[in-house]
């Protein structure tokens, strides 16, 4: 979408496609093949959730170029926000979600400020370290449930409690709303000053500064925004699984998922996270469903090989793959014409 950004319209044909896509998604549960409690609906919920998570990461990791492995911290804070509101205080999750998002943004700014002074691998390892510190900190912090975690009671279902019992349709539409919020925000950013500034910082910090871009402020803002959105996803994750504990939400594994999905799909692009989640999540869920019961970790072996292949062969992600195929096809057409 960058290439055509020469035109002035803020609402382009591309956005029309997005709207169409969301409408299709919204209609899907009405088709019988997606019965209200099917595994397929579960997979779709996960795709939407992980695509949103990846898109949240994409703000700072893709657009702004700061590869953080620490996003599970923010995801976890969001999850704990919702979890504690319901489990500890017996309230609805909503205030917890808001507080969680704000807390995540604050924590993001505090820990990112010193980290942004680090470069390359030093930064990456610092974010690893932060995840481990938070993970272990939460494991011993009794106020948040410590190692025991938080278990949701069964309470009244509905939007008020953001909880549904038998049917997954409610969760599906909630995930869709989160998806729309996060993708919409990123789409908006992409076409506005802040979006250009983020990419400028990614491409060259000194250059950006010479053009009047306060790169530190851009990075911190992007990080805060990204963290708040990750927290929103985390809150949904807690509501969906009805349990929060540190290994579940604040672990390197979770962090890696943010990164992997985005990179596999195509970092710094709007479609990348969705594409990555659409491939990786069904793969993960269905390989586990097919082979997981064998107990040999076959699903994970395949998963590992696939990651290697994908990363090595197409570092631009699947977006790059599609682009290459597109190029190849148009070349072919051009040849035929000649």
């Amino acid at each position, binding site marked *: 979408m960058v290439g055509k950004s020469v035109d002035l319209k803020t609402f382009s044909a591309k956005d029309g496609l997005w709207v169409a896509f969301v409408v299709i998604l919204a209609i899907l549960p009405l088709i019988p093949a997606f019965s209200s409690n099917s595994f397929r609906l579960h997979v779709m919920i996960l795709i939407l959730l992980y695509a949103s998570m990846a898109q949240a990461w994409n703000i700072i990791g893709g657009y702004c170029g700061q590869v953080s492995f620490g996003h599970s911290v923010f995801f976890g804070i969001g999850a704990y926000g919702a979890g504690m509101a319901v489990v500890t205080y017996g309230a609805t999750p909503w205030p917890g979600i808001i507080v969680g998002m704000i807390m995540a943004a604050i924590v993001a700014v505090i820990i990112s400020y010193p980290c942004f002074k680090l470069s390359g691998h030093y930064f990456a390892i610092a974010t690893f370290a932060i995840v481990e510190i938070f993970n272990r900190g939460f494991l011993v912090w009794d106020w948040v449930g410590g190692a025991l975690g938080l*278990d949701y009671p069964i309470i009244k279902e509905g939007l008020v409690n953001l909880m549904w019992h038998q049917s997954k349709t409610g969760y599906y539409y909630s995930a869709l709303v989160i998806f729309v919020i996060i993708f919409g925000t990123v789409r908006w950013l992409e076409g506005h000053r802040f979006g250009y500034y983020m990419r400028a910082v990614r491409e060259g910090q000194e250059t950006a500064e010479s053009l009047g871009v306060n790169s530190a402020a851009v990075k911190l803002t992007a990080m805060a925004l990204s963290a708040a959105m990750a927290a929103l996803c985390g809150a949904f994750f807690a509501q969906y699984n009805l349990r929060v504990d540190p290994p579940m939400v604040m672990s390197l594994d979770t962090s890696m998922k943010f990164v992997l999905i985005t990179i596999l799909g195509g970092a710094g692009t709007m479609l990348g996270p969705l594409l990555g989640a659409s491939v990786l999540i069904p793969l993960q869920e269905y390989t*586990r469903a097919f082979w997981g*019961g064998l107990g040999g970790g076959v699903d994970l072996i395949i998963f590992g090989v696939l990651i290697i292949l994908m990363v090595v062969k197409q570092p631009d992600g699947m977006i790059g793959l599609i*682009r290459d195929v597109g190029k190849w096809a148009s070349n072919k057409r051009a040849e035929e014409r000649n």
Partner: protein
Amino acid sequence: MSFRMSKGAFWATLAVFLVGVFCFGPGMGQTLAQEKVIKIGTLFPLTGPVATAGQRCQAAVQTAVEIINNKHPELKVPLADQEGILDGYKIVLVHADSQGKPDVGKAEAERLFNQEGVWALIGSYNSSVSKPASLVAERMKRIFMCGASSSAALTQRDMNFFFRLAPTDETESVEFVETLKWLNQKKKANIETIGLIYENSEFGKHAAGEAKKAASAAGLKVVADVPFSPGATNLNSEVQTLKNANPDAVLGALLGADYSLWIRTMKQMAWAPKIAISYCSGYQDPVIAKQLGPDADFFMGSTAYSPQFNVLMPAVGDVEKIFKTKTGGVPFDGDSIQEAVAMLVLAQAIQKAGVLDAEKVAETLHANTWDSPLSLGGKVAFAKGGQNSKAHSVVTQLQGGEYKRIFPEEMADTEIVFPIKPWNQR
């Protein structure tokens, strides 16, 4: 990294999304054409840090199903002498891997019910997985049989469809403290202080909490409280902390590899308490005694089963032969055998209820006392909330690589070696 996005790319993404969701969907969960089949799901951590235990549990359920489905007149176990239940219904297992993660476990539980159409679930070893997974079952009004998860909280939720066979860490803690009191009386052991070492996870933390409660009720003083990160590269500071506090007795909750590391580190530091009692898992892993050799001796723990219990539970021996074919010769342990019991008791209840109706079967499970030759004490009965009120375990001590029964006295077969022999006198 930014590309000119064509409409093509967009539609390609949509296609990938839909293919991902659609293609795999149908075809899953198609059942065998056979009519008289009861599908039961198993949900265990088949990969991840506790995969060993999970795989053994799965094998135990498979063993039980083999007994139920086929005629085994040589076994003195209910349902062994007939083929199937309810006049020819056979049980078919559908296995799933929780990876030891609550979110995965919950998703798999839902898939097993909704997609695979299982009738009931057995699982799921980790208490942290059993909690959300059993919630799924409860909300669907389906039965969840839990063999070995030990968290007492599981059966304090007033659930109607949840049944747990193993003794809880609460009862185990009381039993441990009883053992110490008994030692003080009988042996003038003079045990006054307690140290706790446990992995900082749902399992360890919960056990330690119960241990503290039981200890303070009995007037014992907890002088060292040492949680550690599971999968640690060493346990030096943990053991050093214990050594410095030098408690008379240590209660431990450590799984597999951590347990062996703990023992070896204590040996290296040339320290041992007078007595050490462990919650299930690490201590009762049959591999421990073999691999640690004499170092494993004189440590104690609660055991629901060990091959040396054959005198008490004569029926197990032949069942174990089947189990061993699935585990490469590893015998039952106290966790896995509970899963076999869970399967057997469920089948007995279905047989007795006479219908495949979850509510009826759950009522039947609650209402009766079940014969269970694979359980210590031989009986199983469920209290409100689903706890097996007849759950027993014995405090044993490893002597010469064998689990010797020490307490309660009426079950004992050996005199306790007290205190633990120093490392250099073995």
